[in-house]
């Protein structure tokens, strides 16, 4: 325990743990920035303003009807496609649409040719708006032709609460990407730090000094491991508190903490084993990151990926499988740590 305390105080004195927290915050901020930025790019409502399209072609009336229904598009009619395109080139309109009737074997189809800006931040917005507009047109055209169709499309009314699809994306991102990222980074870093801690003692030869103290090698290893294992759930709880503070409710917090604790124990056990086996940082770190990445990727073979488990718990949709996974990780963690202790106990301190 004393050694655990020493490890923690050494860490805080080095201020490196602060750096680690800042990095994690940066990663989190960076990824949420990315998604907020991208969704605002993709969402017509958030960017504000409507787009102006130039309309031409023999089927323009149907297109104009659809535009009249939409509140994010307004139209200007042009004589020909050439005129519409010229207006487009001169930036008088955001996009040029030409709707023509096209004969196929089974009847007429409306072919819409759309020209949108090639290099503009608004391109995404314009394309998404046009897609919605044309989908409305498609729906109304389809409803005229239902007699030719066997399948009747499922209808769902617009959201009564009025939230857009970007909200769904943001919601799902928060729970399925951001939260797992924040929860699993601390265990990964914990294991990495244990590798450093062990190999540094071995490489510098300071393990000798610790062993002069009346403690066994197992105690030393325990101390180093406990410090890092406990630090991970603490960081995780900090992130959870931060998310809660931002009005993002997180359910099953104790179970999430347990999940992080178990993961941290597993990564730490791997780190310890590699550190003791190889004795040099270069090898141990390389192997550690490889193996942990492999395990995390390989976990896809499980019925539920650890990230999914975390997301399901946090979003309050766990199933029996989810609980079973948490229990499973806990068991693996206990067993793994027991194996490490057994290995350390058998290890001859002189051989390091």
């Amino acid at each position: 325990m004393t050694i655990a305390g020493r490890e923690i105080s050494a860490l805080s004195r080095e201020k490196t743990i602060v750096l680690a927290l800042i990095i994690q915050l940066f990663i989190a901020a960076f990824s949420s920035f990315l998604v907020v930025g991208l969704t605002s790019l993709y969402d017509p409502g958030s960017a504000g303003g409507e787009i102006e399209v130039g309309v031409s072609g023999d089927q323009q009336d149907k297109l104009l009807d659809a535009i009249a229904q939409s509140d994010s598009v307004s139209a200007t009619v042009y004589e020909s496609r050439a005129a519409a395109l010229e207006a487009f080139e001169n930036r008088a309109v955001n996009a040029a649409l030409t709707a023509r009737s096209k004969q196929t074997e089974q009847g007429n189809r409306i072919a819409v040719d759309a020209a949108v800006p090639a290099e503009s931040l608004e391109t995404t917005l314009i394309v998404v708006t046009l897609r919605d507009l044309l989908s409305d047109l498609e729906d109304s055209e389809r409803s005229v032709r239902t007699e030719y169709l066997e399948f009747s499309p499922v209808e769902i009314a617009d959201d009564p609460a009025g939230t857009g699809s970007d909200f769904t994306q943001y919601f799902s991102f928060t729970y399925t990407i951001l939260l797992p990222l924040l929860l699993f980074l601390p265990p990964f870093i914990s294991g990495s730090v244990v590798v450093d801690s062990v190999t540094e003692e071995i490489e510098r030869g300071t393990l000798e000094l610790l062993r002069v103290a009346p403690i066994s090698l197992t105690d030393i290893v325990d101390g180093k491991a406990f410090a890092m294992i406990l630090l991970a759930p603490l960081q995780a709880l900090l992130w959870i508190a931060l998310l809660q503070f931002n009005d993002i409710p997180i359910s099953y917090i104790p179970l999430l903490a347990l999940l992080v604790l178990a993961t941290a124990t597993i990564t730490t056990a791997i780190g310890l084993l590699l550190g003791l086996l190889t004795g040099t940082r270069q090898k141990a770190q390389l192997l550690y990151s490889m193996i942990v990445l492999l395990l995390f990727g390989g976990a896809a073979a499980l019925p539920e990926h650890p990230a999914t488990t975390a997301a399901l718990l946090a979003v309050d949709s766990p199933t029996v499988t989810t609980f079973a996974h948490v229990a499973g990780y806990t068991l693996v963690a206990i067993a793994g740590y027991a194996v490490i202790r057994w290995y350390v106990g058998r290890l001859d301190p002189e051989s390091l």
Partner: protein
Amino acid sequence: MNPRKLLRIARWEVTKNAGGLDRRTIAVVVVAVAGLALVAPVVGVGGVGVDDGIYRVAVDDDSQYDDVVANDSTFTVREASSRDALERGTVDLWIGERGVEPADSRKGAAAYEELRESASTYNNQQLAKEGNQTAAFPVSVTVQFREQASLNTSLGAGSGNSDGDDSPATDPDDDSPSTGGDDSETDQSGTEDDATGSVGDDDSTADGNTGGAPPGGVTGPLSEDELSGSPADINPPFPFQSLVLAFIFVIPLNFLIQAYGSTMLSERLKRRGELLLVSPVTRLDIIGGKTLPYFAGAMVTEGAIAVGLVYVARGELGGLISMLAIMPLVLLFLGATFLGSMFARSFKELTFVTVTITVVLTSYAFVPAIFTDIDSLALISPLTLVVRDLQGEAIGFQGFIFSTLPPLLSALVFFGLGSGLYREEDMFDQRSISGKVLDALAGPISRPYHVGVMTMILIPFVFVIQLLAIALLFATGDLSVPLILVVVAVVEEIAKSLHIYASYDHNRFDATARVAIVLGIASGVGFFLGEKIALLAQLVGLQNLAVAEAGLSGGVADVSGPVVILFLLAPLVLHIVTAAISALGARKNRRAYLLALAVAIAVHFVYNFTVVRSFV
């Protein structure tokens, strides 16, 4: 520097370095890499489905929504006897006689919207099976991405108009035999291919400056010049390839810098590096020799990846441009790690330093590549060059210089500062990281004009950070310009004054106000001269974006006459004044320095903000 000695040290590094990898380790690594390669496609294709089952729905078996829910893995069906389940919070959506009802929560709203989207996906899937495809998909869309006249020079592009008009008109007619009657989804690749050919031609006539895409089907699977299909098929271009590429190219570098950092730091443990330092070789031989194997290894790996990807994408050998583009990135990773391992006192610190490097540089490589639509912005990242190379697009020399020179120069600065610390007295002492930073900066400074030179040396660095900030803040819309100005003020003022503080910290100069002002002038002039690197941005026309304009040139717009002189002099005066302010603070102590720095930043920001407000 002596090549023979350098190579000998490189050979030692490979064969008998203290931390060298033995066969067993390599075997394990190979197995792990093979395992990752096996797992990666599964994860990459989205087989993991992280959002599986996050929304709980109560739905009857005979409801028409049952199939929709079953079709989307983000939903999980829960048994619920009555609508009360909605209030109790055990389900998020209740689908009964009154249609779909969401729970009164954020989750309920999200679930409802998700159901709407999956219903539309489901409809399209079902309709694709219909016999009468014209009735099922009565609207077909072709979206072309066309150049518009640029805001300032509408005349120049006007000539392109007339060419552009007739080819799109013929274009859809070409498609119609193939699109008509068929399932538009399965046919999509066919239409896309022959359409891109004509669009490629179209582009190159409309604007000659980007080099355009080569005609025909050479553009390959990465091309996004045109979209076609039913309305649901047209999705805006998403930079998925850039993401994948970023990871493919950057991940090996992360492992590499782990090993490189370890070997550099282990020289500093137990005074091991002493042996090499006392041998008759120069510092640069040692650093070069120890770096060479890692650099070569990285280039071989990245080269293999580049050639392999080019072969997959274009079916031919190539990838030289990709390798050249990725080289500055490799050097940047190595340089940052080298400096980091000179700063760090222990492995633990090194780990944190490496993680920081990884995160920052990965975002540098990746974020700009997101904006593939916006040429000049995307080119900030060298990875964009790789994407272009893979697509077989021509890359302009100017664009190449713009995206590779700043990281290359920054890498050299890193190596230069680090090698300044590769001395006995610095390597084996235990100063803190911040102390080491000051050591590195103060090391080469002994006369006032050195301060100005040092400022110039730091400029590539400032430039890279500003470019990254532009890319990062670009999407924030109206806020972006003020935010950029804040970043600019902070970064530039720190770059102008940190080494002044460092040299005062090392008692290089007298702590009088006169000397401080001299140093401020030196630094300000140095910055003013070095800042001209920002002209690079004009090579690719980045200044056409308001954000970039604000960030890089402080809003110096196109003006003529005597005003020009004012505009040339005003930044010079500004840089001198702010540098002198922080120098005055730096001569006293740390707190005074931070205070003065804050004042300087504020002055800088106010100046920039006023200029941008009144001229842009």
